[in-house]
């Protein structure tokens, strides 16, 4: 059994990274039913590192930070387990995004290639009539190649192999996190919504958006951007 190494033919994501934006790319080859769990594992691991407790601002510009809980998640279709932040809202948001990505992959009729991106950005307020700018500072892209397996034995091996691959990805993510490169400055109370997503009740991730692209068999890319539900739509 071999997993073919494929060259990704899709175009780069629409959001062009700004000068300070670092971009990390991960690639995985998975079976169709493993797509969701693999994506969730990676996205949750990144968000674990990019979420803090809720800020509570006090007088004189000081603030205290709430507590972030964590929990283990076992995968059903992959021999793998990962840790995520204990926040049902965050989990729901990620599952929704990943679910859409998975459906798009399946329905596109392509040969099962696509990518999902997690972008962290800061908002920069602009004066009227210009709308606020979103300046990305970190971009994670997961390129996915869906394989079709012929029999149960191959599927079994795939469970283990993908599990091992995901272990490597987690180690890669942690390496990046450990570089302690640019992070937005801790904001004052008036600026906090330009840096963090304060809409969740129990944790506070940096502002992020998730988008995905499917590569169709002709090599052209079909871009679908999915905006962050709560903040953006309610802001309209």
């Amino acid at each position, binding site marked *: 059994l071999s997993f073919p190494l494929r060259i990704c033919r899709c175009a780069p994501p629409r959001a062009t990274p700004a000068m300070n934006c670092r971009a990390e790319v991960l690639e995985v080859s998975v079976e169709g039913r493993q797509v969701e769990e693999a994506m969730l594992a990676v996205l949750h*691991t990144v968000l*674990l*590192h990019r979420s*803090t*407790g*809720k800020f*509570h601002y006090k007088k004189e510009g000081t603030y*205290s*930070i*709430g*507590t*972030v*809980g*964590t*929990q*283990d998640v*076992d*995968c*059903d279709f992959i*021999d793998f*387990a*990962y*840790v995520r*932040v*204990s*926040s049902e809202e965050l989990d729901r948001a990620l599952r929704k995004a990943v679910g859409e990505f998975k459906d798009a992959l399946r329905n596109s009729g392509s040969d099962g290639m696509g990518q999902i991106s997690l972008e962290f950005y800061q908002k920069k307020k602009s004066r009227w009539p210009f709308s606020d700018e979103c300046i990305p500072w970190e971009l994670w892209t997961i390129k996915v190649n869906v394989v079709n397996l012929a029999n149960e*034995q191959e599927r*079994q091996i795939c*469970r*283990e192999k993908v599990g091992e691959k*995901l*272990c490597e990805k*987690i*180690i890669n*993510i*942690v*390496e990046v*996190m*450990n570089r*302690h490169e640019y992070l937005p400055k*801790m904001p004052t109370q008036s600026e906090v919504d330009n840096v963090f997503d304060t809409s969740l*009740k*129990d*944790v506070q991730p940096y502002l992020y958006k998730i988008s995905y692209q499917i590569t169709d068999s002709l090599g052209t890319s079909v871009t679908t951007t999915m905006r962050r539900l709560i903040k953006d739509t309610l802001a309209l």
Partner: protein
Amino acid sequence: AMDTDLSSQDRKDLDKFIKFFALKTVQVIVQARLGEKICTRSSSSPTGSDWFNLAIKDIPEVTHEAKKALAGQLPAVGRSMCVEISLKTSEGDSMELEIWCLEMNEKCDKEIKVSYTVYNRLSLLLKSLLAITRVTPAYRLSRKQGHEYVILYRIYFGEVQLSGLGEGFQTVRVGTVGTPVGTITLSCAYRINLAFMSTRQFERTPPIMGIIIDHFVDRPYPSSSPMHPCNYRAGEDNGAVYPSVEDSQEVCTTSFSTSPPSQCVFTVTKAHFQTPPPVVTDTLKVPVMGLAFSHQLSSSRLSYQPAALGVGSADMGYPVLFAGGLNAAHPHQLIGPGKEGGVPPIPSQPAHGTQADQERMCTPLDGVHYSAATPSSSEDTETVSNSSEGKSGSPHDLLETIFIRKVGAFVNKPINQVTMANLDIPFAMFAPKNVELEDNDPMVNPPDSPETESPLQGSLHSEGSSGSSTGNTHDDFVMIDFKPAFSKDDILPMDLGTFYREFQNPPQLSSLSIDIGAQSMAEDLDSLPEKLAVHEKNVKEFDAFVETLQ
């Protein structure tokens, strides 16, 4: 800056951060090897008791052991804090799986802000540790522990000892944090070589059951035998309680996700877990039947028999398996399902403790927090010495574990064709899966027809059966001398051994052999039109029957 030295307040803060970081690191590692899923709750309102803004439980015994190992010191150059994770089988063989090292090097970052940047980076590092502890091989092993082996931990302070990990061990770096006094690094060295194990050359260790506990307060089961399942009440200085053995045995098996069938070839028998004849010593010895290698009370002396493998100092390995009973929400109370062998709740427990007991997953508790060591607690009064003198606590006389490949008896085939499961080598279950083995693995490729030498098979076995598989694991074994116990029987002329050998490989069913099978299929096809006609005639009867089922 003119004043490059750390202000005294900053220095105090930094020392405190490092100390609690070390304690939390140990908690994360040990909890990740308990064999259970960990779950803690986020809380938006800061309570001031959660170090590094992370909800990490403090298991009291673990904190105690960590503090004991540190003995008031902090990690410094040449003085690292190490958490050693090892595995011990039911037969007493043990091997080191991982060494997690918290080290300090000399590279200082004088500019960094202690109270803010260092603290947040330490928090980030703990998150990385949470993630990395799930991706090393020992995680999966620890999730499956309980039946044939348990996972133990040991904390030591001083020089890092990696020799017990075997050849070719891998290292993964969790991360680093620069501070004005040095750079903290956290990494893990883990064994990848699980197959080459033999402890025959060492003193044979008695089974794991020989846990000697000094404090045994209550015996809930009056019984003639002095040995019965453990059921502790809390020691004086902590609220830890342990479930009874049988209960934890049930609990342990439930929480696991599917493991691939081809890894289930191994059949280390549970017979090994039967209680050995009790050896009475002057301290009370309690057999742990199977699974509940309860974590030792901090006030009692846990001594494994023997401390031979790899332990020079008085430090022993502590079982990490909290008998499957550790409810993440209540570090002080372990699950004790049912009344028999149930655990009396500690009065100081939060009110909703009992309900939460039965749940394996974390249950949200409104406003209740585990009674962790609080930052504002008496810890402040402890003096933290960072002096460079002081004896290293490392076990210098750590035994060099040399492992040789051992092939079991009765095998006359090349090693790589032997099914590991049938070998009587320790850690057979961890032997690498050979591709050939997989082909021979009856669970992956069930053999169609075994090639047998049974004298009985002659007439039944069709000649030239092409359905026989090439690799029958049974063929790889030729028993030289099979002496089953109690096998002599005066009534029958043949003994159990012969019987077993002859009937071990029964001939295949005739209907399964291809020729005969093909023949009967042709017959079946021919008879189909007739059968259909009959059924059509009786259609009304069938319909009536179906009606009665509605």
